[in-house]
């Protein structure tokens, strides 16, 4: 079976771009078979045989019940990369969506924001303390990270706003 491994970095707020990329790979006959940190393992399949999706799901929230629900609906768990879980489903088994209404998609974005906010604040605090207490420290790295995460939070907020706008009319 033909295999290939690619290394790629996606920011948390670009998880939809990550999914698009994985879907495109699958359309071209390379289906996700496993994940590692910033590492994607693919196997050769028929073009468009599978659909791939990912979800932010903290380990504590991945229950046996959720796994069996996913399995029963025909989805295969491909793997976990820290707080993100990847699934694939054969296209002949029907359309593949993890969320079927706006509310759950908004909640998903909320969960991602929450984590990013915590990390941003932590970095901000560490960065400020280091910069002012320890001369020549790398506190600026933390501050750069905090700024980057703040940008990311802005991007997620934008996505949320778009969904919430639609939510006024539809579910």
């Amino acid at each position, binding site marked *: 079976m033909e295999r290939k491994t690619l290394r790629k970095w996606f920011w948390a707020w670009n998880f939809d771009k990550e999914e698009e990329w994985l879907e495109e790979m699958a359309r071209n006959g390379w289906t996700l078979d496993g994940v590692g940190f910033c590492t994607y393992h693919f196997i050769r399949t028929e073009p468009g045989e599978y659909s791939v999706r990912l979800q932010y799901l903290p380990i504590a929230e991945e229950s046996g019940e959720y*796994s*069996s*629900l996913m399995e*029963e609906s025909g989805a295969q768990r491909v793997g976990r990369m820290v707080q993100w879980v990847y699934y694939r489903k054969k296209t002949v088994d029907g359309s593949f969506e993890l*969320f*079927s209404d706006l509310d759950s998609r908004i909640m998903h974005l909320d969960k991602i924001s929450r984590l990013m906010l915590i990390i941003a604040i932590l970095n901000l605090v560490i960065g400020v303390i280091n910069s002012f207490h320890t001369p020549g420290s790398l506190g600026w790295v933390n501050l750069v990270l905090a700024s980057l995460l703040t940008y990311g939070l802005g991007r997620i907020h934008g996505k949320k706003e778009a969904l919430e706008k639609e939510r006024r009319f539809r579910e």
Partner: protein
Amino acid sequence: MNESMALTESTYYILLSLYTPQHGYGIMQKTEQMSEGRVRLAAGTLYGALNALCDKGWIIQLPVADGSRKKEYKLTEKGLKVLSTELERLRQLVANGDSVLNKEEA
């Protein structure tokens, strides 16, 4: 909370499916069947909704059969009441829609 606030479609179908006890996947199937394929509850959405509905006391989880990963749910009395109220709201919606839009054909 205003008890006459509309339910979302997902909520309505989940509650309706649980008129008889079901596993999560059973709810997905019943909903798809009842809506003739139009409403498809995704696993991520359903899982979150089931937990939220349990918190609200509209459904309860039944005791799990030994070692089974699949949990079964059923409607509570409160949930049944909510469902009935919603049905009345929908009846009025349909009646009004019919009378306004189908007036010409009468």
